[in-house]
């Protein structure tokens, strides 16, 4: 390959007008022996060449990446779906449990009112009668006291100059 052509190519190269093929051409040319005047340029192209051969210097790199990828796998759509439904279910569970416990507390605080206090029916009847008598005695007493109010009524009638009969008639009319 004549050096004239190479020099032209080089000039194009420094001006960034070379195509990829032409640059590859230069690289290949400088791999071999070159005239002394071009030693420095050759050094540059050999440097580029050498740099391109650099590799990841760890033999287990692929294995590590593949392992990490596999670890990542389970996080698919299904898992995400279960996760979100799981959250809803957990929320519901909390509400249900809370309601249950609150109800229990309420029951404890207000025990049922209807409960048997006597085991013997006769005794119970006696007690009931006693209680009813006490109430009716109270009623009678109140009734006696209330009948005194009648006196006031009669007095009122006399003051208004009406006979008791009249007022009674009036009451009947009403």
């Amino acid at each position, binding site marked *: 390959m004549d050096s004239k052509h190479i020099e032209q190519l080089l000039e194009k*190269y*420094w*001006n*960034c007008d070379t195509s*990829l093929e032409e*640059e*590859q051409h230069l690289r290949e040319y400088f791999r071999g022996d070159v005239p002394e*005047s071009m030693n*420095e*340029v050759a*050094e*540059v192209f*050999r*440097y*580029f060449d*050498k*740099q*391109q051969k*650099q*590799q*990841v*210097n*760890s033999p287990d*790199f*692929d294995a*590590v*990446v*593949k392992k*990490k*990828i596999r670890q*990542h796998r389970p996080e698919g759509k299904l898992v995400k779906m279960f996760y979100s439904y799981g959250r809803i279910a957990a929320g519901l569970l909390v509400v249900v449990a809370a309601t249950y416990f609150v109800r229990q507390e309420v029951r404890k605080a207000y025990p049922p009112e209807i409960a048997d206090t006597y085991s013997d029916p006769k005794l119970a009847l006696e007690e009931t009668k006693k209680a009813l008598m006490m109430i009716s005695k109270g009623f009678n007493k109140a009734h006696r006291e209330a009948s005194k109010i009648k006196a006031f009524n009669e007095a009122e009638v006399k003051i208004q100059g009406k006979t008791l009969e009249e007022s009674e008639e009036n009451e009947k009319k009403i």
Partner: protein
Amino acid sequence: MNLETFENRVLPTKNKLFRFAFRLLGSSEEAKDIVQEVLIKVWNGREQMAEVQNMEAWCMRITKNLSLDRLRSRQRRATDPIEEGMEIRNETLTPHERTEIHENMQRLNEMIAALPEKQRQVIHLRDIEGYSYNEICEILELDMNQVKVNLFRARTAVREKFVKINAYGL
């Protein structure tokens, strides 16, 4: 995308991704981390990536973004970034490689590392990886003009700092 296509189409780009991340971060450990992150990201987002045409360019783009994020958070942590970068550059080479690599290679490495970020990205993608201008636009999210300007500046810097000085001893 199933595991098989991932292994056949995405995983083999790991070395390119690694070189690019390494060029941006200057640390092979961090670059490796980033590549892993990129690959897992691609796998997790595989459903949205069904319509991506150039898978490789897409991966490169993610690599670029994650690397720049990493750089930024590194600066925020306010560790000494320059020292760290320099130190690691030597550390990644085995003693054998170190003696093997020509002094000039080392100098070129440092020179490109010293270029502004965009220029460094563009010259890496074009001259080392051999991407077309269109692909570079896609990876770096730049327009054609910006790509060409940055490439021109980067190549000129290499020419002036390395080729001419070495050739004429200036």
